[in-house]
């Protein structure tokens, strides 16, 4: 007897409830595997899944038959946008300071301490940096770190201490005028920082590394040559 046969008013099991999402391809890998396995072992469920697929196809057809809005919608939108107060353009931005401010808004509990939490905070920070650079570099026409990071510069590889909070790291980047350009490296948790726009001499770079290594948020620092 099939495991999915139920009286009319009974809610079926989770796998059967997920069939519409499986048909639409919006399940995560684990749930999709669960459904696939159940379908392979249950002919009745597989028959019901075919009905779901049938509904999916017709629901798409219904929606596709609805057509599209006229140009009036876009005209109305931009007329309203034009009537909006002018948005203040950012003449400059201090990314690291903004980042530090942003990060300091989180409680220690939110950010978490320890290696894993710190790594997550850095990943968040790296994503934020990328987003800000893309947003500001391309809209305002400024020269941003991201736009010049592929060119010449001086780089240092660092590992942040597990107890360093994201706000600490933002402050560290700000005070050292450094930008994360890569990382974390799987296994080592190392990040590559750009510490200068130009190539530094070995002596200059060593001095930067030494200063960074002395920071309470840095566990390890080395020059990238």
């Amino acid at each position, binding site marked *: 007897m099939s495991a999915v046969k139920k009286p009319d008013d009974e809610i079926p099991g989770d796998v059967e409830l997920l069939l519409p999402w499986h048909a639409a391809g919006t399940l995560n890998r684990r749930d999709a595997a669960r459904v696939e396995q159940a379908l392979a072992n249950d002919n009745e469920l597989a028959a019901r899944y075919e009905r779901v697929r049938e509904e999916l196809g017709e629901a798409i057809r219904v929606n596709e038959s609805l057509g*599209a809005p006229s140009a009036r919608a876009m005209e109305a939108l931009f007329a309203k946008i034009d009537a909006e107060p002018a948005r203040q353009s950012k003449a400059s931005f201090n990314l690291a300071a903004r980042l530090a401010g942003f990060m300091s808004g989180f409680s220690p509990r939110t950010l978490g301490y320890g290696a894993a939490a710190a790594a997550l905070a850095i990943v968040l920070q790296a994503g934020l940096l990328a987003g800000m650079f893309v947003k500001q570099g391309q809209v305002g026409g400024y020269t941003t770190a991201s736009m010049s990071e592929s060119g010449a510069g001086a780089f240092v590889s660092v590992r942040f201490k597990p107890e360093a909070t994201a706000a600490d790291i933002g402050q560290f980047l700000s005070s050292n005028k450094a930008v994360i350009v890569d990382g974390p490296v799987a296994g080592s948790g190392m990040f590559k920082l750009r510490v200068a726009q130009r190539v530094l001499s070995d002596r200059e770079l060593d001095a930067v590394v030494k200063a960074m290594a002395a920071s309470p948020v840095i566990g390890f620092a080395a020059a990238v040559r």
Partner: protein
Amino acid sequence: MSTNPATSDEVLIGRIANGDRLAMQVLFARHHVRVFRFVLRLVRNEATAEDLISEVFLDVWRQAGKFEGRSAVSTWLLAIARFKALSVLRRKPEQELDDEVAAAIEDDSDTPDVTLQKKDKGDAIRKCLGRLSAEHREIIDLVYYHEKSVEEVAGIVGIPEATVKTRMFYARKKLAELLKAEGIERGWP
């Protein structure tokens, strides 16, 4: 190199937050048809739906700086659209609503003769999809057409994930009942 649409949408939102009209145009071009269709299925009036989509994207223009990226941009758009559509529906007098719903049902229905002649099961399914309640139509559309996950539907509709699953089940059950009444027995649900 392939482009990740979700990432691109977020980049656009970032630009819109900085007042980039071109980014707004791109985002509008990318999503306005789906948002329009979603709203149209709720309000069942094209002029109202068109008015609403300009309102939805105006909200995006105003709120882009506050977008936190916790959901996909398309999910955010549908959540705004749904809120605005329901606001419009709430503002309409009951009588007007009833008339519209009645008209819609009438439009979607077939005479018995036509039903008898109907051989295309797909056509019958589409007709019955149109006769579902707004709540059931909404969840069917979100899952099947807008390709929203359980979690995303829960976010858009504002109900628990477990309720999303059961609501979808009951929507499909109702669809099966409507089809049965049309003479199409598909089994349960």
